[in-house]
């Protein structure tokens, strides 16, 4: 009797791979962030250790999860970093770019395993060769064992071999997590002196065979090795594997140098804190990349599960609102206990909603953090000096939006660098600082997230835009205002760049930016002043967010006005109401504000059509003020913003919708769009 030899996978390793992918991406991002922050400076010991750890974690994880191709570049990179931190090779500024290049190669390999994106093997081989050349070119500076440098870590060669006994009792899920014991054994063998490694497996229990779970680990391992490796290096092998209490290391007396340099460790069994202290009190990434002290502070949850939770809480909110509405019609004396319970329910539901919504929101710094490197590289390529400033990094928006806004923002940043900002010579000639400024800022304004990309460059060239538009057959005229001219650059194929570069100027940039932004319910606005710079403003709806809103009634319909655009509400007196250029305005403290009649804008039947019979809600958005005429003010409430585009279609003048307590849908007003609609009436 034989078994079939088919490839029938009994477990889904993919979900474990995903964990590695995410952690690998995090490590790459961390490494890049440190490298970019350095400029051309030499990293200090702490930074060097952090970069080393990131590379080592990637290598270790890749080996353990079976992505052997990813260990090639990381291995050479790690060797170079190790030589650098041991001061065996002098630092050279070009190494920063080389490490960044290596990070790109690893990212490419990650993308291949993660998304099946093609890999440029030549580039990977090239980076590996360059790293190796750098190692070979730097003359190793071995330090005699009897003359150690103060404060420098000991290389394996400097330590005397000592015997280590490791007792490893893995997590029962180790097999199912896709971790390969073979890699661990291989890494430990590498650390051992030749022929001085022993591995012994023991079964911890022998359950009834028919009932056992074959993917559950019931084995413990004892390793004995004669090694020159530091305790830290041994622990690094278990970086992605061992949790606390899963690994014990028994060391025979340590070498002379370590003894002299630091207090002797206690003899006997040393419980290895799975997330042990690293250099300068830092902690190394532990199992699945968690950091010290964070064992239980965070877990990874699939986004779809969070979405499901958000939707369920949204439904709960609606149910709660419905109950409140029904209870409002009951006698409060007779149903006192019910009323109290409902108040409590409302409080708890809102707390729950706040907690759940915060899970889905992520800070925009996730996107902003991509740009320092982009700016650095492009500026260097173009011979420009650019300072990148970011503000509002903590502004939170929906995770889905974050992913979709990265590309359009990238286009805008590239355009600003390529076409907006001038060369240092030109800037000096214009009386400007040779260093240009590119500012990325984010904020929440009303029901929207506003992201500005501002540069202090030459600004948009009106004449060239008009000339190019004519050339492209786009209807335009000299009489057009700037506000009408700037959007011409969004036309497909439009580019005023005299040279097509690999940075921008391919003529496919701005229309793609607009299309992508509009695709997520956003819009792009441009402000520009010749010689002073340009500002591109992307405004996005809060697709999934909590919004403090003022609910108002217009006829039988209800609308939500984002509370942070509301200035005040008033019942106007007849003498406050005027007409300017045929448009109704209200005079408030000497200022004339246009009256926005929603029933006209949305073509509704209203009970109140004359301002003096209704209520005017004074609002301000994007520096523009107005007065919205409503029949009645209903309530101030927190609402769950739902994307109306996703669930229905785009409705002009709305930033989304919400479901009210009575189950009806109410539009959330988008003030800037309403102002624009009002002007067109």
């Amino acid at each position, binding site marked *: *009797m*034989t*078994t*079939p*030899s*088919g*490839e*029938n*996978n*009994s*477990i889904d*390793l993919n979900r474990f791979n995903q964990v590695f992918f995410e952690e690998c991406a995090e490590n790459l991002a961390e490494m890049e962030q440190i490298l970019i922050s350095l400029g051309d400076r030499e990293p200090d010991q702490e930074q060097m250790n952090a970069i080393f750890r990131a590379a080592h974690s990637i290598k270790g994880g890749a080996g353990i999860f079976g992505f052997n191709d990813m260990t090639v570049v990381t291995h050479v990179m790690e060797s170079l970093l190790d030589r650098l931190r041991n001061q065996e090779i002098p630092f050279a500024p070009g190494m920063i770019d080389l490490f960044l290049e290596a990070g790109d190669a690893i990212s490419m390999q990650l993308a291949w395993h993660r998304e099946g994106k093609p890999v440029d093997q030549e580039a990977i081989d090239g980076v590996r060769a360059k790293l190796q050349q750098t190692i070979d070119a730097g003359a190793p500076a071995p330090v005699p064992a009897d003359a150690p440098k103060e404060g420098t870590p000991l290389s394996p060669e400097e330590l005397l071999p000592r015997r280590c006994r490791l007792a490893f009792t893995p997590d029962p899920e180790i*097999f*199912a997590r*896709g971790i*390969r*014991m*073979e890699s661990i*054994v*291989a890494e430990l*063998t590498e650390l051992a002196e030749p022929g001085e490694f*022993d*591995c*012994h*497996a*023991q*079964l911890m229990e*022998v*359950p*009834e*065979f*028919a009932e*056992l779970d*074959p*993917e559950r*680990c*019931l*084995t413990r*391992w*004892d*390793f004995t090795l004669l090694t020159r490796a530091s305790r830290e290096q041994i622990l690094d092998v278990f970086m992605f594997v061992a949790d606390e209490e899963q690994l014990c290391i028994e060391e025979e007396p340590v070498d002379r140098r370590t003894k002299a340099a630091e207090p002797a460790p206690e003899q006997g069994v040393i419980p290895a804190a799975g997330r042990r202290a690293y250099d300068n009190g830092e902690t190394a990434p532990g199992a699945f990349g968690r950091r010290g002290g964070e064992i239980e502070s965070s877990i990874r949850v699939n986004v779809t599960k969070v979405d499901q939770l958000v939707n369920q809480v949204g439904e709960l909110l609606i149910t709660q609102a419905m109950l409140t509405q029904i209870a409002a019609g009951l006698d409060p004396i007779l149903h006192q206990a019910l009323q109290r319970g409902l108040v409590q329910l409302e409080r708890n539901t809102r707390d729950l909603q706040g907690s759940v919504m915060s899970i889905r929101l992520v800070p925009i710094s996730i996107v902003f953090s991509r740009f320092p490197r982009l700016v650095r590289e492009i500026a260097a390529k173009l011979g420009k000096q650019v300072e990148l400033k970011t503000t509002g990094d903590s502004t939170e928006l929906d995770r889905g939006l974050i992913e979709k806004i990265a590309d359009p923002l990238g286009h805008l940043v590239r355009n600003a660098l390529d076409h907006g900002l001038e060369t240092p010579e030109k800037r000096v000639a214009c009386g400007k600082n040779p260093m240009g400024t590119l500012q990325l800022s984010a904020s929440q304004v009303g029901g929207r997230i506003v992201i500005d990309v501002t540069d202090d460059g030459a600004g948009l060239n009106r004449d060239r835009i008009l000339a190019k538009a004519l050339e492209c057959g786009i209807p335009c005229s000299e009489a057009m205002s700037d506000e009408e001219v700037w959007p011409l650059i969004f036309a497909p194929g439009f580019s005023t760049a005299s040279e097509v570069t690999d940075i921008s100027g391919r003529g496919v940039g701005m229309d793609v930016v607009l299309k992508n932004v509009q695709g997520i319910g956003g819009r792009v606005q441009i402000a520009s002043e010749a010689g002073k710079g340009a500002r591109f403003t992307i405004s996005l709806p809060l697709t999934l967010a909590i919004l403090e809103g003022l609910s108002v009634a217009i006829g039988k319909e209800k609308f939500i006005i984002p509370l942070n655009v509301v200035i005040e509400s008033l019942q106007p007196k007849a003498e406050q109401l005027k007409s300017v250029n045929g448009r109704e305005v209200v005079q408030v403290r000497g200022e004339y504000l246009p009256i926005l009649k929603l029933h006209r804008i949305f073509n509704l039947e209203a009970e109140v059509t004359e301002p003096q019979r209704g209520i005017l809600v004074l609002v301000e958005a994007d520096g523009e003020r107005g007065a919205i005429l409503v029949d009645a003010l209903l309530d101030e409430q927190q609402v769950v913003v739902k994307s109306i585009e996703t669930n229905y279609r785009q409705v002009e003048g709305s930033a989304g919708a919400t479901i009210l307590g009575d189950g009806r849908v109410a539009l959330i007003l988008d003030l800037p769009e309403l102002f624009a609609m009002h002007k067109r009436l």
Partner: protein
Amino acid sequence: MGKKVFVNNKNITPNGPITIERAKELHQFFAERLDGLPEQPLQETIDLSRVDDIDACGCQLLALFLESMKTRGATPILAAAPAALRERIDALGFHDLLALQPEP
């Protein structure tokens, strides 16, 4: 459900890799063979000649199978393991639990 009867009751011959990916399938295979042991079992040979790969999970499964056979009074013998398989079993520290017959 009735007991399975194996036509070739002499050797137990797993085929292909003994790895985590096939752990459930192989578990069932070994469980059936365990179930099919005679009342008074003596020597049972597990022929590894057709096994081309093994990992720690596979080693453990095989070790548990052997232990279970011993509990039922059988004397399991691991035979005909290819060299690469021997090396892997040794490297993973299962040399005692999976005592292999010496190479011919």
